[in-house]
């Protein structure tokens, strides 16, 4: 029993890093994705072309490869871009997830009926006022479910940074597994991921409930 408790405590220490990576990624990639989406629907080629390239490259290559590239590859090309492991991981995750959020928010914005723009227009609103007051608030409601999906995926994706030797949940449990020749640490890790995601699902459920006031 004490063995299980000790093991769990040790693995949970890794959860701190997992949560930090999770939080940092969301805090930065959500606003970035939002800005990117606004840029993408603006129809200005100076914005849409680079943004299109960005989302297709980032979404079209494995996150694991991107992790290797940022941590091992970048410093070889540009020595100034040598990052500490966690920084490299966080940067990669932010860039990666922002690309998905750009597309999610873009889809959300474009799902808003043209009639909403027209109603705003005949009231005399500018494009900017229309976006801020009418389109984006409705978009937020619509993108909640896909954003929840991404957040859940993100919790699990944090396990990928094990390849950079960062001591998060999975690495700590792996350590115990190879030391003690038992697979129970993996089960414990699995339960921790489950609990984290259960919390997320609950949180997003609450948020969707709040937005259910209309429609």
């Amino acid at each position, binding site marked *: 029993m004490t063995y299980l408790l000790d093991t769990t405590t040790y693995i949970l220490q890794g959860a701190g890093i997992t949560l930090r990576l999770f939080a940092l990624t969301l805090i930065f990639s959500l606003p970035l994705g939002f800005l990117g989406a606004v840029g993408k629907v603006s129809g200005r080629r100076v914005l849409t072309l680079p943004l299109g390239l960005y989302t297709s490259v980032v979404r079209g290559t494995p996150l694991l490869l991107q992790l290797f590239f940022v941590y091992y590859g970048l410093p070889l090309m540009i020595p100034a871009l040598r990052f500490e492991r966690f920084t490299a991981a966080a940067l990669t995750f932010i860039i990666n997830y922002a690309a998905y959020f750009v597309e999610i928010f873009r889809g959300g914005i474009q799902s808003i*009926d043209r009639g909403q723009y027209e109603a705003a227009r005949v*009231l005399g609103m500018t494009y900017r006022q229309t976006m801020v007051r*009418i389109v984006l608030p409705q978009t937020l409601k619509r993108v909640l479910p896909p954003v929840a999906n991404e957040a859940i995926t993100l919790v699990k994706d944090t396990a990928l940074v094990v390849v950079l030797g960062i001591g998060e949940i999975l690495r700590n449990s792996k350590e115990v597994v190879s030391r003690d020749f038992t697979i129970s640490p993996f089960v414990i890790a699995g339960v921790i991921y489950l609990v984290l995601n259960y919390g997320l699902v609950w949180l997003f459920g609450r948020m969707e409930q709040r937005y259910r006031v209309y429609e």
Partner: protein
Amino acid sequence: MSDQTARNAAAGGPATVGDPAAGAPAIRVRTLHKSFGDLEVLRGIDLDVAPGEIVSVIGPSGSGKSTMLRCLIHLEAATRGTIEIEGQAIAREHDGRQESISESKIRHRCRRLGMVFQNFNLFPHKTALGNVIEGLIVVARMPRAEAVERGEQMLERVGLADKRDVYPAYLSGGQKQRVAIARMLAMQPDIMLFDEPTSALDPELVGEVLTVIKDLARERMTMVVVTHEMSFARELSDRVVFMDAGQIVEIAPPEKLFTDPDHPRIRTFLEKML
């Protein structure tokens, strides 16, 4: 003196003193063309609407009625031609060339106009009152308390004072359209455009919306109404415009157009409508 003659007299009478566009028609359209790619939807429209006048636009679907209305408030940019609102151009053709008018000027000039849509286009994330005061707060920059006061008056006017805190999803079609009308009236436009305002409504809800529009007619609001409600066009309009294939076939007072139209096409259309 009947309602109608009173309105006609008012339409021809002097405009308000101090009005910079005194004497100008409320709406003036010349050789308006609109194409979507190769598709020519409007093929040379000429139309004058006098202040206080009520004009109904009828015609088969696909004849360009809605497109014409949308051009008047610049939801569609005219491909060619001139459109003036109270004497101020939002599109102008000069020596065969289309002048460019800045977006902000157009937006400003179009604020004399209001528009009501077939599908209401209420903002679903705002309550009835929220919808009505949105333009007042964002566009007219009115203090909130004042906007709420006017918003409540507007809801009262369309008979929906008790629905002020209700979201559009919980309103019937007729109620939604009345909120949409209140939202537009709150901006105090001089001219109202209605794009088939009752076409999306269940038959039993048409009446309540028409009542509101009739009230406006009684107050001599300048109106252009695209409609399939022949009885409405007949009873309330000063003139009826019949459109077909992107052109105006005939403009006439309702008593003439509905009983003795010059054009056989109109007779055929009216027979089908009855």
